[in-house]
């Protein structure tokens, strides 16, 4: 295939992070931990599956002897129809036993494997769910998803088939060798020259091939990342007419994928011929040496035939052992990533004797609170503040001034580095997390809509709310009318990135959600996204309903909410620089005054 020469710059226009091809050293401790998930089934599914596997394996081992040594050498040679009948019937019975055992083997092995996968995934999800904010801050949603879904799935094969097949193959392999030795030690030794070759192919060549395929997967991952991005950014690409340049980039990635694949497939194609050739070598030895043994009279035709059959069966377990080994290595890589998550400790931990507060009044105090996200930069530098029960407090300041951090400390998403946060006069660390968070509700800037109906989305605030309660909450925040105008009203299906709802409507939904939760303390991160004026009016009205009767902390952007609040804290670089109400602060003509003025100065410069 001929390809056009392209500009080097274009080939470097996108960067995607990719993993390296590496084999982890085998970690026994980790493997034991992984197989520990089989423990709950050690008294039922596990031994039952193993029993079934052993039955089928024994039948497979017995058949060649019955055919070779008994049928050919005894019944047929001695022309004994009676014996032939008995043999045929017993072979038939063995097959039936194997048939029944097989049914249960497949059933129980799958049940075992899926139960382990189910447990593991549940364990991981539950654990992740309870981890603190900091954990989620450091990772993209995609990378967490991959561990819960793909990494666990890649263990599926290992637990369903791999582990038990390992046993079956070992039994089969040892069984064949023992039987062969009993039948004819000298012929066995001669035939077994192929064993080391097979092991070599199965381990060394396979390793080589595995690496080649890993490379293919990496290239494909890169290709997919770019595809995904190019589809999502297509409007930008077309606006800037970069279609041709992107095609050149894609061609480069596509070509790399093609080449890696070609090489992998070249290596892969060598595998089967080499295996078969090795097997053929064994058969040739069998024919040559076996024939001479028969000539000597030390070997019967039946044994010769049994040998041929066993030799045919030989490759399968060795090949599968190689496969299981591959699975184990991949399983090790996956389980390492899974255990990394499981070993994460929730940073915000509940005390054993935590106080369960049924009804907060919502009185909040910060005493000399210092906080740092990463030990390098200090987000809060000794904050002292008080918010009285039922007050509406606005936090104002530049991006990075510490507004959100204060809010995060109140709901105890993080713990203060030093100093104390008190609610109702009690150190927040002494209050049980559930009772605390059940009474605090945060309305975020980016309202997240879960896929499901509108009804379900509002009910998320309090899962046991009735339909009527949901609707009256929607009504109270002024969301009822737009919901009723949707095709299916409250039963309209919405999804995360669906376009059915505008930004403003999403905001109203999340207000309804919070109103339904009826928290004692409400934290509101006001949205800055563009909302048309009509909707904004609605939101302002809804806010009044929402704020009534609770302590509210608002990270404020809209002047209307700031103006109406009881207290305003102006923050700068983690410190409170001004506090008071709107009029007091305007009088002061300080930072607050400048911030407010700036909003209306826009364009007046021209």
């Amino acid at each position: 295939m001929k390809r056009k020469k392209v500009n080097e710059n274009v080939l470097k226009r996108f960067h995607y992070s990719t993993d390296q091809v590496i084999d982890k050293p085998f970690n026994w401790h980790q493997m034991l931990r992984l197989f520990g998930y089989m423990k709950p089934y050690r008294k039922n599914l596990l031994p039952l599956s193993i029993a079934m596997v052993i039955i089928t394996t024994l039948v497979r081992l017995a058949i060649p002897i019955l055919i070779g040594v008994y049928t050919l050498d005894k019944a047929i040679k001695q022309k004994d129809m009676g014996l032939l009948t008995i043999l045929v019937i017993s072979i038939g019975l063995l097959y039936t036993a194997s048939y029944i055992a097989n049914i249960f083997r497949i059933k129980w092995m799958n049940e075992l494997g899926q139960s382990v996968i189910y447990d593991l995934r549940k364990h991981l999800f539950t654990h992740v769910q309870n981890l603190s904010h900091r954990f989620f801050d450091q990772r993209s949603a995609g990378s967490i998803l991959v561990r819960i879904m793909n990494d666990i799935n890649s263990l599926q094969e290992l637990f369903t088939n791999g582990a038990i097949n390992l046993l079956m193959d070992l039994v089969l392999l040892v069984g064949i060798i023992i039987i062969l030795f009993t039948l004819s030690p000298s012929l066995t030794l001669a035939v077994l020259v192929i064993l080391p070759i097979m092991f070599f192919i199965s381990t060394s060549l396979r390793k080589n091939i595995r690496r080649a395929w890993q490379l293919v997967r990496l290239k494909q991952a890169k290709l997919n990342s770019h595809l995904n991005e190019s589809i999502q950014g297509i409007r930008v690409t077309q606006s800037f007419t970069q279609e041709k340049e992107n095609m050149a980039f894609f061609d480069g990635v596509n070509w790399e994928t093609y080449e890696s694949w070609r090489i992998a497939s070249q290596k892969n194609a060598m595998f089967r011929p080499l295996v078969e050739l090795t097997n053929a070598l064994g058969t040739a030895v069998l024919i040559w040496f076996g024939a001479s043994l028969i000539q000597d009279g030390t070997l019967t035709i039946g044994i010769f035939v049994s040998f041929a059959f066993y030799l045919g069966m030989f490759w399968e377990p060795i090949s599968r052992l190689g496969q299981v080994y591959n699975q184990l290595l991949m399983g090790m890589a996956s389980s390492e990533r899974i255990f990394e998550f499981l070993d994460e400790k929730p940073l915000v931990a509940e005390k054993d004797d935590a106080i369960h507060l049924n009804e907060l009044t919502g009185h909040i105090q910060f005493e000399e609170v210092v906080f740092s996200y990463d030990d390098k930069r200090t987000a809060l530098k000794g904050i002292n503040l008080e918010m009285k029960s039922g007050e509406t407090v606005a936090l104002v300041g530049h991006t990075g001034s510490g507004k959100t951090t204060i809010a995060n400390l109140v709901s105890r998403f993080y713990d203060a580095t030093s100093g104390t946060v008190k609610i109702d006069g009690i150190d927040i660390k002494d209050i049980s997390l559930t009772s605390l968070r059940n009474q605090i509700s945060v309305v975020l800037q980016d309202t997240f809509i879960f896929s499901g109906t509108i009804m379900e989305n509002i009910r998320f605030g309090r899962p046991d709310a009735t339909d009527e309660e949901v609707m009256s909450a929607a009504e109270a925040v002024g969301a009822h009318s737009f919901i009723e105008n949707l095709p299916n009203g409250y039963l309209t299906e919405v999804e995360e990135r669906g376009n059915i709802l505008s930004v403003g409507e999403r905001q109203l939904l999340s207000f309804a959600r919070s109103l339904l939760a009826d928290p004692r303390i409400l934290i509101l991160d006001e949205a800055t996204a563009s909302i048309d004026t009509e909707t904004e009016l609605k939101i302002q009205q809804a806010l009044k309903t929402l704020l009534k009767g609770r302590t509210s902390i608002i990270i404020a952007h809209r002047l209307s909410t700031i103006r109406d609040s009881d207290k305003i804290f102006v923050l700068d670089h983690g410190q409170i620089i001004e506090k008071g109400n709107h009029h007091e602060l305007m009088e002061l003509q300080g930072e607050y005054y400048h911030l407010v003025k700036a909003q209306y100065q826009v364009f007046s410069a021209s």
Partner: protein
Amino acid sequence: MNTFKKLKPFYWPYVKYFFWSIGFLMLVTAITVVYPMILQVTIDDVVLGKKYSWVPYLASGFIVLMAIKGVATYINQYYGDLFGIKTVYRLRNSLYEKLQFLPFRYYDNAKTGDLMSRLTADVEGFRFFLSFGIAELIRLVVLIGISFAVMFYYSISLTLVTLATLPFLAIVVYKFEKAVHPAFRGIRKSFGKLNTKVQENISGINTVKSLSREEFEIGKFNDSNGDYKDKYLSTSSIWAKFFPLMEFIGNLSVVSLLSYGGYLVIHGQLQPGELVAFYSLVWYIIWPIVNLGFVINMFSQAKASGERLLEVLEEEKEISDGEYSLQSEKLRGEVEFNNVTLRYDEDSKDALYNISFKAHQGKVIGLIGSTGSGKTSLTQLLTRFYEPVNGEVFIDGRNVDEYSLHSLRSNIGFVLQESFLFSSTIKANISYGKPDASMEEIIDAAKRAQAHDFIMELPEGYETILGERGMGLSGGQKQRIAIARAICVDPSILILDDATSAVDMETEFKIQKALIEVMKGRTTFIIAHRISSLKHADEILVLENGRIVERGVHAQLVKNQGLYQRIFEIQYKDQSVIVPTQTG
């Protein structure tokens, strides 16, 4: 077959690999059947016939034959793979090219996930069939055919008795295939649901935690997780029901082979070696039949995949360069709309109706109106992202469809509502529209967009690589890079679609100050909800339901008793609070 015919241009150029692959496959299959025959000759002629002198020839002949088979297998497999992956390379490039040029209208209804699965899973399904499926089908037929021939050659009656089970096997295979595929689809669907569940949970983890709904979410997850397990187990029970049965039927053949074959040997009508050969040959027929369902299913899946690929490939570009498209290097930026009507779908209502206005070079046009009133649609007609059903759009006195798309779009700078940045360096993101821009040009654009300072504070400066979807930057920072990107191409027409939506007050002020500088000398369209953003525009168009309901400058509109005045009053209410303080 039509699907395969239409996709011919993609695989036909490499068909020689296919033919070579098939040729060697025949050889491989023929040699496979030789193995039991050699076993038979060894037993019947060498051992029983006492022709021990044949042994060396037999053994070495066997090795040679197997060596030939090895080489043939290699070529068969490698060339088969090449046929598939070369086709994939070509197919992917064409698909990608198609995607680059499909119009906005297409993407309005397309889902990224669906497109991705076409470009990955469907391409893979098609490849698998090309590389493996056709060859496997041929191999099965040939293997069954030759095995039958050899068996008939040895003993017709034994063949018939032994293979009397075949019709039953065929029925079981057929039933299995019918039952197992819907079950597999069930697994995939359930996995998809579980995936969506987890993905949503993680993306919305802040919402979950802020309402402390972890337990609730764990409960919902357990349901999905349990459903996946159940679906998997019900599939494996189908497997447990049929697969051992298929093997059992094959084993029954062996039993009848042993009883009738043993009888024949005892009565001297069959050689022992022939009996042994039969034992191998039987499985050469049974396993292919068990696999046949799999191969046929692969064929129908490849066909379905091919159809989904064709859907993308045959999608019309709709908007493309006219025959004599103008290659204008630099436009001046005189814009005129003449009775323009736009409709997104045949039967949907008008997105824009009868829009007429003129914008002279260097002037600023403000667009205001509620969500869905047509502000964005109007600007997208300039770049021909959509085409009007009625009326004309002129730039510099010529209809926009007279220009080549490239010369048109490279003169228009767009800052879109959602600032999408690519996984690349900041430098490459700014110069996205002009890959050969010099470092000075890039820095200049960044400075004008008020982005230079924060870029320089990043550890790698302009070489900082932004993560997928530009993670690591705040909304305001992303927006400023997007503005720099638009400025970098030095457009004659600049469109700012809600360019300051994701930033806080202070940043908005900064950006707007920057924009004043940027807009100089360019015809600019500003879409905004805040009157403060566009009150200095040379003309403001107020849109409602796709129509211009008011137009004029701020001073006129504010007294016009219309929508503009209403919006102004709502927003002014805020301002009045500080005005007295300012003056007093």
